[in-house]
């Protein structure tokens, strides 16, 4: 049955609306305001139009940070999504091990992000870290502070360590919600393991996978604290992602105009790409006539 139409429902939404409006719209207006203005200090501002936008979009600094971010998000998604699915598929479905697995896997998600950076900083150092020391031991000269490739490897490893569990938990919750009858029917239909995955598990996970992809994309695209602590954006600017650059510009150099313009562009890119993921994934394998109910 359809939900009834009732505008009085707005009373329920009002607190959320007020709260979020105050903490989102006012700051956002500030940002927008700055992005169109220039200053010579002393709180004197004048209209700068789209100048900052043009500057930001044309700057190599922004472009390379954006490219780094895109590459990083792509690598993260390509590793974490399949890995997360695979681990979720292999997890036990009942018994005490479920709780043990879930608790241990969720642990990295609840560690403050800078501590995550610290943990990996300590773990990866070749003088005092288990990982760095072990790599030295097998003859690899590991120094992520000097090598661009190595710094990327450790940042990606850290993110995989930090966030794959989110994908696992999402997929797992999707998997356990599949009624037993589907597996039984598949066994009776003689379906192979692969076909069960392809025709039952994957379609039934579509919704949670959408959430996983969106969350992982957004968060990896916004990543700030962990690489900031781990590599400080270096060596050079090899791991300087958009957020790191933005904070450097806004708070470090106090270039409010360009920083604000960059914020807006940054935000819009995330919105756009999220929308693309959303549209592609909800329409995948679905006719226009029969959209899933998750569509809202």
């Amino acid at each position: 049955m359809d939900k009834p139409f009732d505008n009085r429902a707005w009373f329920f939404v009002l607190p959320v609306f007020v709260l979020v409006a105050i903490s989102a719209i006012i700051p956002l207006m500030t940002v927008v305001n700055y992005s169109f203005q220039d200053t010579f200090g002393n709180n004197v501002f004048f209209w700068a139009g789209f100048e900052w936008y043009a500057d930001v979009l044309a700057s190599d600094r922004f472009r390379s940070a954006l490219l780094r971010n895109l590459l990083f998000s792509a690598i993260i998604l390509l590793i974490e999504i399949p890995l997360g699915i695979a681990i979720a598929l292999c997890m036990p479905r009942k018994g005490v091990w479920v709780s043990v697995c879930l608790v241990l896997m969720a642990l990295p998600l609840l560690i403050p992000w800078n501590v995550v950076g610290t943990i990996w900083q300590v773990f990866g150092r070749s003088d005092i870290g288990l990982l760095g020391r072990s790599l030295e031991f097998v003859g690899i000269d590991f120094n992520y502070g000097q090598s661009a490739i190595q710094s990327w490897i450790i940042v990606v490893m850290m993110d995989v360590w930090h966030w794959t569990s989110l994908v696992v938990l999402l997929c797992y919750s999707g998997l356990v919600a599949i009624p037993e009858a589907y597996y039984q029917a598949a066994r009776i239909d003689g379906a192979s393991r692969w076909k069960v995955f392809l025709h039952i598990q994957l379609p039934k996970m579509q919704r949670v996978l959408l959430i996983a992809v969106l969350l992982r994309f957004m968060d990896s695209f916004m990543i700030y604290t962990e690489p900031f602590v781990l590599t400080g954006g270096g060596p050079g600017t090899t791991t300087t992602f958009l957020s790191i650059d933005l904070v450097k510009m806004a708070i470090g150099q106090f270039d409010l105009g360009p920083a604000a313009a960059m914020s807006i562009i940054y935000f819009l890119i995330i919105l756009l790409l999220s929308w693309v993921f959303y549209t592609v994934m909800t329409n995948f394998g679905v006719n226009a006539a029969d959209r899933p109910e998750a569509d809202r």
Partner: protein
Amino acid sequence: MSGEGARGGAGAIPPSTSAEEALERAEEAPAKESSPLAGLGGNSRLKALVPTLYIVFLMLPIYWLINMSFKHNNEIVSTFTLFPENPTLDNYRVIFGDPSWYGGYIDSLIYVVINTLVSLSVALPAAYAFSRYRFLGDKHMFFWLLTNRMAPPAVFALPFFQLYSAFGLIDTHVAVALAHCLFNVPLAVWILEGFMSGVPREIDETAFVDGYSFPRFFVKIFIPLIASGIGVAAFFCFMFSWVELLIARTLTVTDAKPISAVMTRTNSATGLDWGVLAAAGVLTIIPGALVIYFVRNYIAKGFALGRV
């Protein structure tokens, strides 16, 4: 309702015996003994290997941190040991002996709790509205809420600072809690809406037909029904607020400085006291671990956001 007389004479008619229900429930859960995927290939030992390896990978860095937290600084720097050779609690003593250290924990917990309470209390009615009614602009509103989750904290750091400065809220717990609401409220609404939609609307209607007023129904019937959803939403609010650093650091100077921000101090401190840093890190993991332990039975359901 076998009734009396003739029917009763048929002896074996089902009144409500407990054996009957036991059987019924047993029957509703058929084939539980053979794993759903048994016979579909895949050695079960090999299957157990994958999560095991993954957990080992997760635990190693954490283990290393714990290991270090029990070592003296010179053992950390000069030798390489898999276990502390001279286990010490000195690093923890440093933290618990210095208010600027342990105060950070208290500050963090205060704003996390405020944030969780505020987020949930505004999200509950909103989620109810979204799950039960259509109204003017509902879809746009819902989408707009979610876009806030997509806003990079870095974008908001500076304007937040200015906004809260204007209200004189800088360096207060409330400031951080309110700022985090921007990210947590949309998520809480989303999660709760999912759980609420899993509750049949007929239950609401039955309550209204029975004569319940809305507040009474909401508190007495509805909230207990979605208790697990509230738990999960609280978990997510806690999680974000506890782990976030950028905004928390920007909005605080000394009085409400979160532990994670206090920690960054040692990073640049002279001679890097690795042992204390590790101990502080270990202590930041503990609240999270406790929270997970309490919601462990809801995690699987919670991540499905109440419906799949």
